[in-house]
């Protein structure tokens, strides 16, 4: 954890499930990216994932949690409790999965939180492979990346309206006959 204290725009460092997540402010994202590549040696960008947290926590999760060390239905006084996940800072999270190809391989997740309509600077100058990943995040989630040289739709038709992976976009498709639903 201490090793990432020098990351520009650092908000917090989270360690869970044996993974490290570095949360930074969106305005300092490219500085943080450059720092991680040059100073920390994360020269490989695996993936850029955008997540939409609209409606997070509204379906209250009750009942037993399925872990190996979790709740035992047979033990007394364990009727299950209402676990509502903590609220997220903004609606969208953009995660950059970084890897350091070296004798001591390390992985880290660079995370930043965006509101709807807020844009973040592209990291193509840092890792050129971000080109299509950012286009996909724009196409399916609607996150704009400023100064991207070619921010067009990549997986859907050019004239498609909407961003399907958002939580307020319906799944689409057709109702199945004889299934009892409308």
């Amino acid at each position, binding site marked *: 954890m201490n090793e990432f204290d020098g990351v520009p725009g650092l908000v917090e460092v989270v360690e869970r499930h044996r993974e490290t997540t570095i949360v930074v402010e969106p305005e300092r994202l490219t500085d943080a990216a450059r720092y991680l590549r040059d100073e920390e040696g994360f020269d490989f960008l695996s993936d850029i994932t955008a997540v939409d947290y609209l409606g997070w926590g509204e379906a209250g999760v009750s009942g037993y949690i399925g872990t190996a060390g979790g709740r035992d239905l047979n033990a007394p006084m364990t009727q299950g409790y209402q676990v509502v996940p903590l609220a997220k800072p903004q609606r969208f999270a953009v995660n950059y999965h970084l890897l350091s190809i070296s004798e001591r391989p390390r992985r880290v997740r660079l995370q930043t939180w965006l509101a709807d309509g807020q844009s973040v600077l592209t990291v193509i100058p840092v890792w050129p492979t971000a080109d299509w990943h950012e286009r996909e995040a724009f196409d399916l989630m609607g996150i704009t990346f400023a100064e991207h040289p070619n921010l067009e739709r990549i997986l*859907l*038709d050019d004239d498609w309206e909407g961003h*399907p992976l958002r939580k307020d*976009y*319906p*799944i*689409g*498709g*057709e109702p*199945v006959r004889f299934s009892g639903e409308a």
Partner: protein
Amino acid sequence: MALEKPLREHGLKSERLLWPTKGPSRFENEVDDLEQKVGLTTLAKAVAWAQTNSMWPDTFGLACCAIEMMSIVSSRYDIARFGMEPFRGSPRQADLLIVSGRVSHKMAAPLRQIYDQMLEPKWVIAMGACASSGGMFNNYAIVQSVDKIVPVDIYVPGCPPRPEQLVEGIVRLHEAVKAGVPPAYEIRSVAS
């Protein structure tokens, strides 16, 4: 043969008359065998037989079903015995369109374009669950059945269908063609 008087009194000088002990010639023997060597058929049936025995598919492999379609070309499930191993790259030279795989909305236009470029008569096999009905992908991206775009003759279910299932579908198509069933574009249009 009912003649009023024998042939020799007609003034004919055939060899058989001048040489009464001559047996049937080689040509006459062959004429006798001929009914075992010649089939009588109608033009439609002959054309259907020719069509089924060299129905060349177009390379329209999209997804997982394409891998199973490639394996019917391989030596175990050899479709060369049906005369179908040359998968034509150009739809102008193809008779059969095996839509193998899921068709997204972006791919729907090229699919219709390829179908339109094929020359009549042409047949379509919807291979797999995704081509037949949308499969497990009942969502915004996949066309729910390829018969919304092109008229389909045979639907082959499976996810992906075994090569033998696809061969069964092809054989049934051949039987339908030989029985005189017209291609799908003559009997139905696309589904709505």
